């Protein structure tokens, strides 16, 4: 039963696809092709990512992560988070499980918001494309403003989540 419950979301999505196939076959075909493309990408990227996470979990001690990315890591921690995020390492969904295990290992919420934000918004290959199509002024302005915004959001979220922790998530993370 539990397995079926876990798969509720994908089954619902499947029904939407079936509905589309009946009423809007063109859209259904287009959507399926896109999904298939992303599926291939995921199948290639996710297994190594999860193994790397496992290796990190086993080999890098909590104290290390805490001193690199923890609450006392200051500007150095934020710089590490930006550097990790801007590396060419694939789509954002890859970063979610990584972020979760980094938080469990003692990384601060501020640094994790900066990490996820840089991953999504400041990736180096993506910036190249942006400069090419939008111009340098656009790309550079957006880079600087986004980085400032991420720091602010990170600090704000650190305060909120320390004061009102996500109890449900904390309970699940311990399992």
């Amino acid at each position, binding site marked *: 039963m539990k397995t079926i419950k876990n798969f509720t979301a994908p089954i619902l999505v499947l029904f939407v696809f079936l509905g589309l196939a009946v009423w809007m076959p063109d859209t259904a075909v287009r*959507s399926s092709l*896109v*999904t298939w493309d992303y599926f291939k990408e*995921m199948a290639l990227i996710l297994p190594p990512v999860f193994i790397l996470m496992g290796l990190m979990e*086993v080999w890098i001690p909590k104290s290390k992560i805490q001193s690199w990315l923890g609450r006392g890591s200051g500007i150095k921690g934020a710089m590490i988070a930006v550097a990790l995020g801007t590396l060419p390492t694939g*789509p954002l969904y890859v970063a*979610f*499980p990584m972020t979760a295990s980094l938080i469990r290992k003692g990384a601060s919420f501020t640094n994790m918001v900066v990490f996820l934000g840089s991953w999504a918004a400041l990736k180096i290959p993506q910036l190249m494309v942006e400069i090419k199509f939008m111009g340098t002024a656009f790309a550079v302005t957006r880079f600087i*403003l986004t980085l400032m915004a991420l720091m602010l959001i990170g600090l704000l979220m650190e305060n909120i*989540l320390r004061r009102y922790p996500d109890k449900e998530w904390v309970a699940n993370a311990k399992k």
Partner: protein
Amino acid sequence: MATILTIYTLLAAGLALSLIKSKEKTKKAFKIAGKGFYKSAPSLLAVLGIVGLTLGVLTPEMIAKLVGAEAGFAATILASVIGAITLIPSLVAFPLAGSLLRSGATVMTISAFVTTLVMVGIVTAPLEIKEIGKKFTFLRNGLGFLAALAIAGIMGVLLS
């Protein structure tokens, strides 16, 4: 390509080091990896489907029509909502944004589209919630949306 190369190089180096140091711990790492993968699989599949659906409905032509048809403030809001919902690869998104800009959309509208696109991910939210929790996801995306609008406003003033 760069992505795949980076990840597999990291994997090869990490695995080699780990195997030299301890077979036991490497085995444990694989166990943790398997468990994590199994736990994420359902939300991953759902997100894949949702991404496909949004991109199937909101094609580049459709977005161009929607954003191009409206003018002024309404266009900016519409662009930010579309950007927040969809997950478009940058190789598609930036050429689209560039051509919209050249065909007459304002800098503010295009900035709103680009910034919400990269800072807010509604289609990937189920996965983010599963991994990092509801509170984190809502706060990050909610605050990200507000910040994206502010950035778009500033860019509109600075760059036009």
